[in-house]
């Protein structure tokens, strides 16, 4: 009896926290589907409208921005997977002179916020002629210290015997990575992929600085047209725009919820 009561209480508390966490999202939905006169007034009978979405969509070339953002996050993620996998494998399995120092240097990069490097990165890209290109937006992020660190740790935990067995069968290094390491580290890839995609989906300052044209700018830069500081804020349109631009991520998360949560638990990122 007491046990069931405890269970009931913890369910109620979990729901309560869930509700508090979801409030901003619920508010955004409320504001987005009502005329702006009702944005901060709760009235169940308020008229519903989709006009806010129409106004938000028309305020910037969002179709193009969606394409740019999708290309950017997928491109960055693919490049990160390749580079981080190879680097992590080298650091986890090969002993070579200075590997410890090298790994420490990579870890140092974790302590530096990317915003500090804006100036230097811009100069480098300028020399490479990559200003105002999607490659330029993504390039500084492809050798991700976080990704290397995460994959190295999970590769280290894979039993060496499996590696040896694959070698005995005559597999090359790349084949071993593909057949042994990749499948075993799958949850880590899913978890890291999610972190990477959501980071680059939301990244704003760097893309704004390094791009100049509609063809290269991501969604977040398009969203900025609603932050009209001299004029106050129209919550309805902002909420509609925010929902619209985050919808693909939210839908994807809901669809793959189970896989994501399991990956996070196994990968140990919270």
């Amino acid at each position, binding site marked *: 009896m007491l046990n069931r009561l405890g269970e009931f209480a913890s369910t109620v508390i979990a729901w309560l926290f869930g509700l508090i966490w979801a409030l901003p999202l619920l508010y955004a939905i409320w504001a987005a589907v009502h005329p*702006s006169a009702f944005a901060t007034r709760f009235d169940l009978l308020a008229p519903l409208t989709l006009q806010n979405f129409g106004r938000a969509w028309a305020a910037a070339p969002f179709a193009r921005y969606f394409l740019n953002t999708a290309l950017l996050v997928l491109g960055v993620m693919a490049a990160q997977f390749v580079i981080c996998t190879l680097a992590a494998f080298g650091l986890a399995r090969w002993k070579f002179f200075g590997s410890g120092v090298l790994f420490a240097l990579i870890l140092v990069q974790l302590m530096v916020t990317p915003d500090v490097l*804006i*100036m230097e990165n811009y100069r480098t890209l*300028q020399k490479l002629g990559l200003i105002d290109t999607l490659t330029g937006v993504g390039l500084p992020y492809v050798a991700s210290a976080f990704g290397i660190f995460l994959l190295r740790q999970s590769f280290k935990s894979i039993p060496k015997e499996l590696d040896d067995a694959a070698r005995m069968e005559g597999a090359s290094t790349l084949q071993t990575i593909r057949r042994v390491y990749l499948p075993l580290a799958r949850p880590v890839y899913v978890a890291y992929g999610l972190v990477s995609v959501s980071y680059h989906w939301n990244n704003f300052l760097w893309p704004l600085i390094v791009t100049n044209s509609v063809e290269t700018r991501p969604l977040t830069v398009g969203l900025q047209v609603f932050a009209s500081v001299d004029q106050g*804020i129209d919550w309805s349109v902002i909420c509609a725009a925010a929902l619209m631009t985050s919808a693909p991520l939210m839908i994807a998360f809901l669809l793959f919820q189970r896989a994501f949560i399991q990956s996070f638990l196994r990968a140990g990122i919270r």
Partner: protein
Amino acid sequence: MNILTRLTIAATLAVTALGASDASATDITFYYPIAVGGPITKVVDDYVAEFSKTHPDITVKPVYTGSYQDSIVKAMTAAKAGNAPDVAVLLSTDMFTLIDDELIEPYDAIAKSESDQAWIKSFYPAFMENSQADGHTWGIPFQRSTIVQYWNKDAFKAAGLDPEKPPANWDEMVAFGKKLTKRDASGAVTQWGLEIPSSGFPYWLFQALTTQNGAILANQDGTKVAYNDPKVVEALQFFADLSQKHEVMPKGVIDWGTTPKDFFEGKTAMMWTTTGNLTNVRSNAKFAFGVAALPSKVRGGSPTGGGNIYIFKSGDKARQAAALEFARFLSTPERAADWGIATGYVATRPDAWQTDAMKKYVSGFASAAVARDQLKEAVAELSTHDNQRVTKALNDALQAVLTGVKPAKPALDEAQAEATRILARYQP
């Protein structure tokens, strides 16, 4: 000759040919921020299209650069990497920062003809205060504003006040505010008398109070500030008293972005905000409202605000000449009038108000001229060398006092000490 060599030669020739055809046209880049709502990027694109029609030899690439904050970061990053925009609209208060980093060219160095000289003199002097330093003109006013007061005429009527008479001085403002502040049975306020926003850049609104109290916060060269002048302390005490003693304004920090919304929804009967908000208030207020110059204490007055057009150093004569041409195009009387009507900013020169479009606009909407008339009493917006840090010292003091953490005098003494320390290296 193998294929590779042939390809290389072909490519080199092609590049040379392209380069040659490019030389006849001048390409310039134009950075602009957006600080008001509406389809502003489209208005700017239209200006650029119009410009290219009359100037086929110049190609302008307009680049929208986000908020003012983002714009200065982007412009400075690009400029320091040798990829500066040719023309940029940035805050007038960024002038000293841009001068100190040697990023901008003074107009008097490129605009030498007689008509150019006359053009520089054609703007309202109040706007030029934030555009000139050390004997040079560094910026040309583009989207400039002042602070004005808006009042809800219906609420004035309901409180037994004359709906056509806004408060003319501080005492009236407090007295009106007390009548306008309404409480329900439990004592909770349903309508405040007044809101003066204090989030983000509280120094700007506070500067209106110090101006009215007869204080000037910084010198023209941007090397000295007077944060703990007794008149400034008195102004800050009054700012805090509005909520803490007179209880006509909400306590704590009032958000800039939502103040207009509070006004539309009747949560406050009066508000102080930029004239840039005029178009917004006009289209959203469901009641009769009025716009007036700010109330006075020993004098009236408001700081100016907003963005100037700067020309960046590029070391290329042709591009600078093209940049000047574009800056002149953006600031003709007709365009200044058009931009003012589209956004609510104050058209930057007296002759813009003589254009037919502007005359028609003002005759249908007299409030549009209030900010212009207030320019007589306007002062330069607080701007110094190392502007961000020097104004931050004041902002921190203001918010500490408004939230009741510190009393006015010690908070401002501290801000003054901090600002003096930062400005020490700029002393002559």
